[in-house]
């Protein structure tokens, strides 16, 4: 199973801190600085989890999510939202995002969301395996 996490954010510092933490937690981290790049990376690789910022220059996080779902990628996605723009978060949940992270977030919050997502992924996978 892939151990790769894709971090999509147009903010370099966010990308760096996230990757630092995630790598220290034992994940392989791939970075993308905008939506186009993210879609390209999604097509190229298999990701355990995608952390996707909603507000970006160019394609927005929601557009990326829509596009990848259209293309048939069922990767688990956690949206990163600006604080208070819950509406966007709700919108993205409808499009099949697993969870959302409200900016500004803390390591604690990040850890919880990532762990929860991965656990769910595992449960889903187990169920799927069981069915098969």
């Amino acid at each position: 199973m892939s151990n790769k996490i894709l971090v999509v954010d147009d903010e370099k510092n966010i990308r760096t801190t996230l990757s630092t933490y995630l790598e220290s937690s034992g994940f392989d981290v791939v970075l993308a600085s905008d939506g186009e790049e993210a879609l390209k990376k999604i097509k190229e690789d298999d990701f355990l989890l995608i952390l996707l910022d909603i507000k970006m220059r160019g394609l927005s996080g929601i557009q990326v999510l829509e596009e990848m779902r259209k293309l048939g990628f069922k990767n688990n996605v956690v949206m990163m939202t600006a604080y208070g723009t819950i509406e966007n978060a709700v919108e993205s949940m409808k499009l099949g995002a697993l969870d959302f992270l409200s900016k500004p977030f803390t390591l604690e919050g990040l850890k919880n969301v990532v762990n929860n997502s991965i656990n769910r992924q595992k449960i889903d996978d187990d169920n799927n395996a069981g069915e098969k």
Partner: protein
Amino acid sequence: MKTIKSKLIAIFVLIFAIIVATNIFAIINFNTLQSSINNILKSNFDSVLYAQNMAIAIERQDSYELAMMFEENEENVQGVYYENQKEFIKWLEEAQGNITEPGEDIIVNELTSNYKAYTGKYNEFELLVNNNQTIGAKDYYYREIFPLFEDIKQGCRDLVDVNQKKMIILKNNSEVIAQRASTISLIVSSLAIVIILIFMFYLINKIVKPVRGLITKTREISERNYSQLLNISGKDEIAELSKEFNIMAAKLRQYDLLNINQLMKEKQKIETIVESISDGIIVTGAENRILFVNKAAEKIFNISELDVIKKHFTEVIKNDDLFVYITDIKSEKDALPAKEYLDIKIKRKGATNYYRAISRAITNLEGESIGVVTLLQDITKLKEIDEMKSEFIFSVYHELRTPITSVIMATELLEKEISGKVNKKQKGMLEIILEDGNRLKNLINDTLDLSRLESKKSELEIQPNILSRIIESVLKMFEIQIKEQEIKIIKTIPETFPMVKADFGKISQVLANLISNSINYRYQSKKLIIRIKASQKDGKVVVSVNDNGRGIAEEDQKRIFERFVRIKSEEAQDSKIGSGLGLAICKNIIKNHGGNIWVESKLTKGSTFYFTLDIADNNN
């Protein structure tokens, strides 16, 4: 001058004169009567008396003569004859001096001549008797003296007759006079009464008629009809009064005109001022009917004063909030104090304008409110600027979120030594960055929260909710703190309690804020007890959060709901992490729920925060 006084005097003089005249007339009549009666008594009665006395005297003389003839030697009685002769002459003389009736003088003259002849014959007779010629004497007597005697007696009777007849005539006369006198007196009196009555009526009319006129005109004057003046005729007091009255009416009219002019001037002045005020002004009366709107108000509501005057407020201005506000202001005295102002939004021809309505009750002398003056200030520009400012702040804070996220995360990564070891001093510094980073994060979050609440950008999801469930969920958030700090929570909610209209998340936020305030401002030395209570009052739910903490000084109690107000306290934990926006957020959330939030507190004794929520209808 022909005054009423002189008229009255004239009337009384006239009456007096008539009375005097009738009296004089009656007296004259009476006197005539009296004198005629006197005449009867005096002259006629005297004559009768004289005649009778003469008759007696002549009878005695005759008796003496008879005695002389038949009884001799009786000289002693000779004196009787002369005595009676004297008597007779005396009465005859009286009768002569009392001749009153026609024919009486003839009778008396005849009597006189007869008596003269009689005395002459007596002397002859006496001679015959003295010469003892008895037969001759007797013969002489019967021949000469006796016829004379008879004549004299007859004369006396005639005299009596004449006077008696006259007396009867006079008696009849006096009866006639008396009759006439009473008749005339009656006529004269009646005439006098009639004349007096006529004069009285005339005079009374003369006095009363102008007075009637005065009464009518006075009534008209009191109804401000000054145009009709009194007709003045004559020169009496009434006429004078009428003249003065006319002068007074004229003066009153002038005064009235002057007053009206002044009032009109004042009115125009005020109207000009009011009309030229750029703020809208609406005056409503006791029944919320519109009494006045100025030009600005006409423009604001697109109405015309002429069309809306005396109409009910709601008929003219379709703004329920404003109407509720105005009625609140009107009944302020006996109800809760109303809001200082109300901001309303009016959409017109595609443009949206904002107005701040400031209403004040008009009270009468008894302090009852009889209407409301509402001032409408155009705050569109202010609102726009305010919105721009909010927008600006919002976007600034918005932009701060991403950098603060990286700052906190990077610091945490360092502090947790994920990216390599740090020494103790460095760790201390990193902790400082982290602590203030978190403070910044809270400030950003709260500010964004608040500005969203204020601009009502965040729509509330108000649904019927079970209050105790909200409380439970909030207490769960504090589970660890409650356990660690040994906080006692006392929850009092009646078992059957209605559902409340609330946004679950937002009310949770309010409760969480209040509870964390209680925790942050507790006395460390004392066991913290937090009482959460819910009750019903006036159709609303009142939730209270009470603690036994430090309390809030009275001067701070009003300010704490304002932005960035934090009660300074060295011991307070919150002073390091709170944004100072917590209660401002609470206030906005409750306000957006249509409720109220307030505090009761005593320094060192603790605080109780209250807020109200609407009860959810069962069918909702």
